[in-house]
């Protein structure tokens, strides 16, 4: 993982890994992340998320120090040594911090946090404990590095299963309580906020089963049918999990669905046609505002259509916006396009908040009183029904995207993305081809905007900021550019997971940032890449 250390000599590698690891540990305690995570038990009241975090730092230290050039035992010794060093640095600095009473500068360095961070010990005992624990964890990291890849993957699957089982406790309880019709099992699986030992066993078994299924699938079936089975599982989860859980989950999944819808649209632009569009939110806003103006029970409304009548009009308006803006900017190449579209996003947002447009679209007050869509005469009020509407529309858009990808139009996008000159010599009109992708992406963003307006019932300019574009871009990259199932996975992880981790307050964005870096470092092709792209990149 830490590739840039590979060139260093063994002893300096140990020194480096140990020092950096120890200081990262200190940092985690000093900024308060550790305290927040330490309050969250994962396994049987005896292993907290905070401890897991520190252990994984030590594990990473061992991983980095266990250089292959030193041979098996040499690598393990280096790993353990680096871990001991990291533990000493960590405990040493924290002990000094306790003496120096640094809480005035680092508010999170409370005596209680320091006490947990130092395993409830003082002086030499704390140093020895930290060195021992970090050394052992680092030795584990070294061992993991020397393991054959399948064993490593199995271990990772088990670790993820335990974490997911513990951290998404409320989700699982709600899901299985509705599925099994009772809560009698809850106290067996969970104790307090974390997994019990039995629960940990169940999670480990689930992780092992998952890994076994994956390996079996890879061996028995071709890549194509494996990915079909995967898509079927994903779809089943998307349909069933919100149904068997609660309104909160449905609400989060609604947001996930909206982002997946936008992701599918941007996937056409970026994943298929290679257009880096940072102004995507502009078309989302057009779709939302057109829907609001056409349907709202508000003095600003210009018509009182139903959602179903407004949806195609909003989509067309967003597409028209894409056409009008795309015509001039699509003649520029590459990075310049990103800047031009970034400008568009800002223009639309400023127009929406400006006083000039306030009499027409409400300015900062926004538009309220947007009705819910009707289904067979009754309005869809529950979060769950709105979620299913989003899911259906997302699937339709994804299906359209898939059909396009494998049509001459989609192949022309791919060709222009790979090599503009050669694409032109094959008869592909570059501007026209890009415009087509841009307009389609804009139209899909318009659909998402219309849904957004009707599900929230009111819209405000703050909802249409640059971070929407950035979020959609990030979820595409995390999921795997050009891959439709990747869009869902990316949206679930980047949009859904932070919502489920609300108990960690602002620190949940730490997951977001950490995940982005981790994916880019370890799996740059994305979590669920397009099979062909994965093979060649």
């Amino acid at each position, binding site marked *: 993982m830490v590739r840039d250390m590979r060139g260093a000599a063994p002893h300096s590698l140990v020194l480096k890994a140990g020092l950096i690891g120890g200081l990262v540990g200190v940092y985690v305690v000093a900024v308060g992340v550790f305290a927040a995570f330490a309050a969250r038990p994962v396994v049987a009241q005896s292993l907290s998320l905070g401890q897991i975090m520190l252990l994984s730092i030590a594990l990473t230290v061992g991983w980095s120090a266990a250089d292959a050039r030193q041979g098996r035992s040499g690598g393990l010794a280096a790993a353990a040594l680096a871990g001991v060093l990291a533990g000493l640095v960590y405990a040493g600095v924290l002990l000094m911090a306790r003496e120096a009473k640094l809480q005035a500068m680092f508010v999170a360095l409370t005596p209680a946090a320091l006490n947990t961070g130092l395993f409830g010990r003082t002086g030499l005992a704390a140093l020895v404990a930290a060195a021992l624990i970090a050394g052992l964890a680092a030795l584990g990291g070294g061992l993991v590095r020397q393991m054959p890849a399948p064993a490593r993957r199995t271990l990772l699957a088990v670790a993820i299963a335990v974490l997911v089982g513990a951290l998404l406790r409320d989700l699982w309880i709600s899901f299985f309580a509705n599925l099994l019709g009772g809560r009698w099992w809850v106290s067996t699986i969970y104790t307090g906020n974390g997994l019990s030992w039995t629960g940990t066993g169940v999670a480990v078994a689930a992780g092992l089963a998952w890994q076994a299924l994956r390996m079996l699938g890879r061996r028995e079936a071709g890549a194509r049918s494996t990915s079909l089975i995967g898509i079927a599982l994903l779809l089943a989860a998307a349909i069933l999990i919100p149904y068997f859980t609660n309104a909160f989950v449905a609400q989060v999944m609604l947001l996930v669905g909206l982002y997946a819808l936008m992701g599918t649209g941007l996937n056409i632009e970026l994943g298929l046609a290679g257009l880096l569009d940072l102004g995507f939110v502009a078309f989302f806003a057009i779709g939302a505002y057109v829907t609001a103006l056409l349907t709202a029970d508000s003095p600003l409304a210009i018509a009182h259509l139903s959602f179903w009548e407004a949806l195609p009009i909003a989509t067309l308006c967003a597409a028209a916006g894409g056409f009008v803006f795309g015509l001039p900017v699509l003649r520029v190449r590459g990075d310049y396009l990103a800047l031009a579209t970034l400008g568009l996003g800002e223009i639309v947002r400023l127009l929406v908040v400006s006083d000039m447009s306030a009499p027409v679209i409400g300015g900062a007050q926004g538009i309220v009183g947007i009705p819910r869509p009707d289904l067979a005469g009754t309005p869809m009020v529950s979060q769950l029904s709105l979620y299913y509407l989003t899911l259906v529309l997302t699937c339709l858009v994804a299906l359209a995207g898939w059909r396009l990808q494998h049509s001459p139009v989609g192949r*022309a996008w791919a*060709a222009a993305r790979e090599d503009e*000159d050669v694409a032109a*010599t*094959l008869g*592909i009109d*570059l501007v026209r081809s890009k415009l087509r992708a841009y307009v389609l992406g804009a139209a899909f963003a318009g659909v998402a905007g219309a849904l957004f307006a009707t599900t929230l019932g009111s819209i405000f300019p703050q909802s249409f900021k640059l971070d929407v574009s950035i979020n959609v871009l990030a979820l595409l990259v995390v999921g795997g550019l050009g891959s439709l199932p990747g869009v869902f996975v990316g949206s679930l992880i980047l949009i859904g997971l932070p919502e489920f981790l609300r108990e960690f307050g602002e620190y949940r964005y730490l997951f977001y940032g950490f995940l982005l870096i981790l994916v880019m470092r370890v799996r740059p092709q994305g979590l669920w890449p397009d099979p062909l792209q994965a093979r*060649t990149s």
Partner: protein
Amino acid sequence: MTGVSTLLSVHDVDVHYGQICAVRGASLDVAEGEVVTLIGANGAGKSSLINAICRLRPCGEGHIRFRGQDLRALRADELPGLGLVQVPEGRRVFGRLTVMENLRLGAFCRKAARDELETDLAAVLDLFPRLAERRDQAAGTLSGGEQQMLAIGRGLMAKPAMLLLDEPSMGLAPRIIDVIYGAIAAIAAKGVSLLIVEQNAFLALELARRAFVMEAGTITLSGPAASLVDDERVRAAYLG
């Protein structure tokens, strides 16, 4: 000039890169069904001239006509529809697409029926059996020779009246070059006009009827390929 049957005629064309003049006053012509080669050393301006013909480079003076139509009024993507298709230098295939997707892209300019396309695909796979073995493989994972086959096959899928082959032997092993040139000869035998740009003059001169020699941006020699093979200057410069 071969009169009425002239397919491509380039007359007095200049190509500039800023202040630098890469091609000066170049003229050449290719008749219907003819194989012509443009030979010259690295940097002589061959590729610049080809790119000017294909409208990938603007050109200054002169005219470029294909079937009597002035290409200078057209964009690059309008040429394959007229039957003029380039097979680019350096085997520029679309690496992340499969072999079949690359081939189908070749037919992008045609409004052909499904069966007709399938027939043409079969013909290309027949010409290059290696591609048939690798049909669902990403083009970027092919060997250099296979990529060159794919680039040529992709060009053929456009059903061209004329193919511009830019250095088809570049960077390939002699055994593979023989395979490629065998296929090129088969294409020529079907009546497709060819303009082959080559540094590897010997092979091109063997196949072509006429040849043009380019040096430092200008065409210095032209004539029947057979006589150029024996020309002292050509021998000294390209054949060794």
